[in-house]
């Protein structure tokens, strides 16, 4: 069914809202998971995102952007509030991403461990990026969205997204070059400083 028609129906039909939920729950969950770093809070914030969408769907007016952009905005606002509310050290457990890394063909266990360490070092560097850059990387790599779609979600032009992406890659590379031999954050549960940064 056409998305616009489905949204119109969802204003007065719970089943139609259920269809919208099915269409977007995975994307929103993924986005939140990489912003908060654990499944427990990702579930809580995903639920809150959809409850908020349900309560405000009557006021939703499509302005050229897809429905998902509206949902991502709700999720983004909730994540920002969540970080603001947590004025303490966060427990970020990325063990499921890291420990579940499969062995590649012909790979030894120590090689897998090295790969995991490298991955964790990269994720730690990403966690130190400003919030908008983290958001951009999640939307691009986890959700696989195009620059135009990311621009609609983040309220920026395609050109601004391209430029931000480029600058993000450069700063990430610099960060990784600065601390090449730094020990990765201890896992399975990594601790990072709270606040606007350190959300991945």
């Amino acid at each position, binding site marked *: 069914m056409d998305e616009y028609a489905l949204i119109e129906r969802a204003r*007065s039909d*719970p*089943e139609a*809202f*259920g269809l919208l*939920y*099915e269409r977007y*729950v*995975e994307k929103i*969950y*993924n986005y939140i*998971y*990489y912003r908060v770093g654990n*499944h427990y809070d*990702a*579930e809580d914030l*995903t*639920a809150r995102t*959809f*409850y908020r969408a*349900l*309560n405000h769907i009557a006021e939703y007016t499509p302005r050229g952007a897809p429905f998902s952009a509206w949902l991502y905005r709700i999720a983004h606002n909730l994540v920002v509030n969540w970080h603001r509310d947590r004025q303490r050290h966060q427990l970020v457990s990325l063990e*499921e*991403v890291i420990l579940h890394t499969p062995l590649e063909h012909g790979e030894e266990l120590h090689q897998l461990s090295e790969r995991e360490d*490298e*991955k964790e070092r*990269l*994720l730690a560097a*990403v966690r130190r990026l400003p919030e908008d850059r983290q958001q951009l*990387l*999640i939307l*691009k*790599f*986890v*959700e696989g969205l*195009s*620059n135009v779609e990311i621009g609609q979600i983040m309220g920026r032009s395609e050109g601004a997204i*391209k430029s931000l*992406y*480029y600058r993000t*890659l*450069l700063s*990430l*590379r610099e960060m*990784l070059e600065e601390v090449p031999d730094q020990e990765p954050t201890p896992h399975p549960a990594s601790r990072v400083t709270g606040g606007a940064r350190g959300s991945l």
Partner: protein
Amino acid sequence: MKTTLREMIRGVNARINLLILMLFAGDGERDCLPYAGRVDVASLRQLTERLHEALVPVSPREEFRARLKENLLAAASQRLAAERESRIAALRRRWMLIGAAAGSLSMLSVAGIVAAVLLHQRIIRL
């Protein structure tokens, strides 16, 4: 002479890197091309590959997903029922007000007629 040659080799290297990026990079990396000539594109390409490996999609628990849907549908039905209820209550209130206004008007009219008749009779008697 040596420096010029080295610069030429560096330039050729940068172009080769650019070509590699153009051939194998995804949408995002190609977007960097206007700037790519100035940077080591190979390392950026490597970085994006590492990001692809690290930022993998995850799935919510099936139980959570199903329970949330159930709760949302129940909340949506409740909300609709509450809205319907409040609409009916508002309509009922409106009709009661109209009825009361009409009733008051008709009572006033009857009282007016009675007063007029009594006044008329008194005038006749005088």
